């Protein structure tokens, strides 16, 4: 590869368009327009100069902004596709996703499911898209920041006439009317916080070069952010679990390696009250019917202090008491417990009276703990009740036999054997909610329903996310870089003597209006004419 030596003596890397030092055009004049293309200072973008090996070809592919923009646009469209129907994680679990999409959205839903759009954001091709954007970010940045840095570092004060002439802001003033030392101008430039460099009486005033690095800084932030996303897949970095705890219950918190326990003292659901709450809400409450005000679990966090293993009674020490509410998770050791779900009024116990059908006289009362019923309840005076079978979540199976669907007492049913002095062998009775079956004919005795007790259940999300720091740092750097690039401008003003003339050129990476105003103020009273905007002459 040949390096290019400029007539000013500076040696430029191959592919340079404008000499890094004096700014003269190194390519044929014809290829240049009326104005210089100042993007990347006309420096050599390396990618475009070597294209031999497969590595170079891949490199060049990702180094192209055009490819980068296409990747962004394709990702954008793909993301939009995923919002047409709800994603799998947001559909109810009443049926399989395949059935659900077809049932709810017909042929379109079926197609959507078959194309895999129900889980679009974790599909391999979406990940590949995001990853390609990441690769493009790295390569584009490396490919541009190095030559840009070189060019800005090497730039000379005295620029070639052709360079000045081809700046968007350019003007010539007759030197006789001007104070040759530019004292006033320099003072004004300093007042505007320009850094001034001089050479042979020529001036280069520059400020805000810092803003040129904004894009590369924000790309760094994005890359750190993406690394955070990648780390999420490393085992143990990200935990997403759930624990359901009944009121009064103490339970092991999953994923804490058996170290932490949580007691649920009470769950509260509050709704807004038209009378008691802010009167301004009354109409809205009326229209909406019911508006939730608070979901809250009052809990105590315990830490295990002995060496007990799972299943063994552990010695617990209270760590803290806390009221978990929405927006107020309980945090400990990198974990956070969130109030996400609840179940009101789960049955906890049921009471029955044993009565003789003929006179309805209660012969004894039993209260059954629905999570752990006794085998036998002695009611005294020779009366007792035995539980033959217990179905906490009762249903009939396909064969018409009673069974339970789960261990949760959603719909308890019992097979009781009632032992009484006059029926010492006992009478069998099947009792479910609002239902009594006497499989062996009419009984003389009956278990009469006498009330229930309920408890609320809190559903808490157990979350640990050790990758958050990457996202926070990446996000911060990104914001910093974006602000750096967007809210500062890189401005340069060249003032050059040429024979009997003063040439002034101005360049900024954005906000030309601002630069023009500023140049106006700087040149005010110096006798130098404001440079013209050559774009607006057209």
């Amino acid at each position, binding site marked *: 590869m040949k390096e290019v030596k400029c007539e000013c003596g500076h040696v430029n890397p191959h592919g340079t368009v404008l000499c890094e030092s004096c700014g003269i055009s190194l390519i044929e004049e014809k290829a240049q327009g009326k104005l210089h293309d100042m993007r990347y200072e006309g420096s050599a973008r390396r990618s475009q100069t070597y294209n031999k090996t497969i590595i170079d070809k891949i490199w060049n592919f990702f180094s192209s902004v055009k490819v980068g923009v296409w990747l962004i646009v394709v990702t954008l469209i793909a993301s939009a596709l995923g919002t047409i129907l709800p994603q799998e994680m947001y559909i109810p679990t009443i049926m399989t996703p395949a059935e659900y999409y077809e049932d709810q959205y017909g042929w379109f839903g079926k197609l959507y499911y078959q194309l895999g759009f129900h889980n679009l954001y974790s599909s391999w091709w979406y990940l590949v898209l995001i990853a390609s954007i990441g690769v493009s970010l790295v390569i584009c940045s490396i490919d541009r920041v190095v030559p840009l840095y070189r060019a800005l570092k090497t730039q000379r004060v005295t620029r070639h006439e052709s360079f000045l002439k081809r700046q968007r802001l350019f003007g010539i003033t007759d030197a006789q009317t001007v104070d040759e030392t530019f004292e006033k101008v320099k003072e004004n430039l300093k007042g505007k916080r320009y850094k001034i460099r001089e050479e042979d009486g020529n001036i280069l005033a520059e400020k805000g070069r810092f803003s040129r690095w904004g894009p590369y800084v924000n790309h760094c932030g994005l890359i750190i952010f993406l690394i955070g996303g990648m780390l999420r897949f490393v085992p143990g970095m990200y935990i997403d679990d759930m624990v359901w705890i009944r009121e009064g219950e103490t339970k092991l918190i999953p994923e804490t390696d*058996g170290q932490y326990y949580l007691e649920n003292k009470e769950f509260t659901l509050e709704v807004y009250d038209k009378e008691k709450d802010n009167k301004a809400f009354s109409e809205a409450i009326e229209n909406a019917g019911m508006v939730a005000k608070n979901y809250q679990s009052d809990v105590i966090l315990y830490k295990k202090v002995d060496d007990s293993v799972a299943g063994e009674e552990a010695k617990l020490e209270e760590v803290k008491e806390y009221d978990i509410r929405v927006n107020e998770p309980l945090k400990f050791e990198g974990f956070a417990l969130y109030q996400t779900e609840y179940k009101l009024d789960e049955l906890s116990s049921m009471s029955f009276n044993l009565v003789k059908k003929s006179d309805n006289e209660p012969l004894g009362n039993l209260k059954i703990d629905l999570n752990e019923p006794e085998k036998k309840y002695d009611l005294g005076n020779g009366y007792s009740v035995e539980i033959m079978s217990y179905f906490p979540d009762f249903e009939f199976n396909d064969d018409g036999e009673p069974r339970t669907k789960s261990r949760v007492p959603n719909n308890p049913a019992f097979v009781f054997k009632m032992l009484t002095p006059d029926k010492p062998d006992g009478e069998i009775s099947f009792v479910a909610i609002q239902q009594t079956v006497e499989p062996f004919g009419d009984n003389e005795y009956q278990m009469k329903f006498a009330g229930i007790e309920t408890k609320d259940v809190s559903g808490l999300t157990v979350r640990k996310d050790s990758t958050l720091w990457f996202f926070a740092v990446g996000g911060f750097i990104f914001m910093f870089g974006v602000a750096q690039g967007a809210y500062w401008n890189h401005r340069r003003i060249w003032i050059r003597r040429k024979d009997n003339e003063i040439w002034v050129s101005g360049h900024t990476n954005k906000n030309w209006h601002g630069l023009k105003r500023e140049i106006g103020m700087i040149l005010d009273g110096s006798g130098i004419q404001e440079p013209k905007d050559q774009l607006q002459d057209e």
Partner: protein
Amino acid sequence: MKKQRLIIRTVILLVLGAAVIYTLYANFTKDDNPEIEVGKKAPDFVLTDLNGEKYRLSDFEGKGVLLNFWATWCPPCEREMPYLEQQYQNYNDEGIQVLTVNVGEATVTVKEFIDRHKLTFPVLNDKNQEVLTAYGVDPLPITFLIDKDGIIKKIHKGEIINEAVIADMAKEIKP
């Protein structure tokens, strides 16, 4: 110069490529519970059976352990019970202990189930679901094969459909 540039580019592309491939790979082999896998030590536990007798997993070191999790409301669990029961005695002679863990149902319910299926092997009841949590059990049934050193040798997810399956599993953990 030129060569150096090629090397730098190659290295950067390799690093980026490796990161992408790792992410894709990890995304498709997402494991919910990294603590529980073949080759790792089985978490120790203590549970009582319905007669109040305590069982501690680590007490069985030196023997192979077949650890099965089940519930009365799980039909495949119910179907595999006879195979476990038939083989229970044989295994015991071969130095393999069968332990089954119920998911913490009411004692009455479990007792009735045991009586109905005439089960003789130890049935432990995980009342607080602590062992279930430790083993990341979901869904049922699931069977862990633990060797004489307490190392998990095999995890069988789902129903044991015949005796041959058990026989194969037993081979792995015979001391």
